[in-house]
């Protein structure tokens, strides 16, 4: 592999990294918001969210990405590839994250929130100061799992023409006729990215021990 191949690989890695990172950020937040809304059990809204979650969880990423990219013009939306890719990944991961957050809510100790309310905290302060910090720690294993699924599933967005870390290996081997080296490097880069996430997960686990009273 020559310098330009390396350059292309790193560019592909960067594309995968930033599109995934943005989607993860959106997905984690939106998942939390959906879980919060679902707590309120608002009729119709709740059913719609359930519908969204089951559809999003059941749809392959490739299908979702294609659908968004191809239907956007019909809806009068001018989406560039990256935005469409991020939208597809976010819609997918949000659905899974919403379920992770929801179970964190459901398992949260009622006694602890009562103790918070008893000191005069409003439900919002209770959520922000007492529940959320602990829910983040207990949900992190699940969230990180979902993050690594998203990164590993992200090559799907190549279908709408985004040159990500996997797609770029095709382009390189089309020139060099040596498919193996770029694929191996790409594999190593994926492992490095996921490795960072796993490290984060360990950090959280150490903190989680404290919560086990």
């Amino acid at each position, binding site marked *: 592999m020559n310098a330009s191949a390396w350059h292309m690989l790193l560019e592909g890695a960067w594309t995968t990294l930033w599109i995934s990172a943005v989607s993860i950020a959106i997905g984690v937040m939106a998942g939390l918001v959906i879980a919060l809304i679902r707590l309120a059990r608002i009729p119709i809204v709740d059913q719609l969210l359930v519908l969204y979650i089951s559809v999003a969880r059941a749809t392959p990423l490739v299908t979702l990405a294609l659908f968004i990219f191809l239907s956007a013009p019909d809806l009068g939306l001018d989406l560039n590839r990256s935005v469409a890719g991020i939208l597809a990944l976010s819609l997918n991961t949000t659905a899974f994250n919403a379920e992770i957050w929801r179970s964190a809510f459901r398992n949260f100790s009622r006694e602890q929130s009562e*103790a918070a*309310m*008893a*000191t*005069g905290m409003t439900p919002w302060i209770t959520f922000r100061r007492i529940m959320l910090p602990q829910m983040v720690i207990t949900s992190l294993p699940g969230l990180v799992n979902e993050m690594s699924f998203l990164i590993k599933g992200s090559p799907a967005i190549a279908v709408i023409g985004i040159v990500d870390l996997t797609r770029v290996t095709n382009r390189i081997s089309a020139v060099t006729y040596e498919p193996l080296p770029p694929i191996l490097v790409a594999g190593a880069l994926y492992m490095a990215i996921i490795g960072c996430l796993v490290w984060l997960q360990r950090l959280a686990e150490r903190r989680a021990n*404290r*919560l*086990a009273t």
Partner: protein
Amino acid sequence: MSEANTSEMAAVSIRHLSKSFDDVEVLRDVELEVKTGEVVTIIGSSGSGKSTLLRCINWLEKPDRGSIHIAGQRIGIHEDGRPMPVRELAKVRAKTGMVFQGFNLWPHLNVLHNVTEAPIHVQGASKREAEERAMALLEKVGMVDKRDSYPNTLSGGQKQRVAIARALAMQPEVMLFDEPTSALDPELVGEVLAVIKDLSAEGYTMVMVTHEMAFARAVSDQVVFLEKGLIIERADPETFFTTPKTDRVRKFLENHDTPSPA
């Protein structure tokens, strides 16, 4: 809590309080008045409604009928029947401090921060002010040297003492104790009771549900006996423990260790 006029105004005033869970009436037209500086103990067998009564006082349990005033202020519902918005309810609730059977400390915060959390985020106290107040309270409950420890490293008695400091930190008008020693190993009961006894000596207003008869006799100004949601007897501790009026209470006291005269 030492203004002269509060002595006329009850710290807690409960009128016609009723509450059912499904079809079971757990509280039936309960009336209770707790004067400022008074220690009231609620006694009764399990399922008599004692804890529910206590939890109604700070609206953790919503009564079906009746009214509760904390230091003259209605909790939960406005006088005209409108439900109280959550922020307002939280404000009235802050006039009470509660100590739970299961301690319910927040495990992600160390001892000091368990005590400063509400003053900072509810009262808007500065960090410094809240920490000074917290240290004084931790001193009072003998937990200063554990201020940096996390709850999971503490014994039950230590947890409960921190929980008492946490409740006191909001400078409540009344402290509510829900069986504060029931979850403790026998050898740890004493250290918690000693702290509560100190508080009563300092003039804190307290309502307590407990099974510790000797303790109830020693610290109470008023003992209330609850049976199937009804207050069937109320008296000063001497009268209550030596000459109970009803057979039910006599029987109850026989089954518990009847305390020797204090």
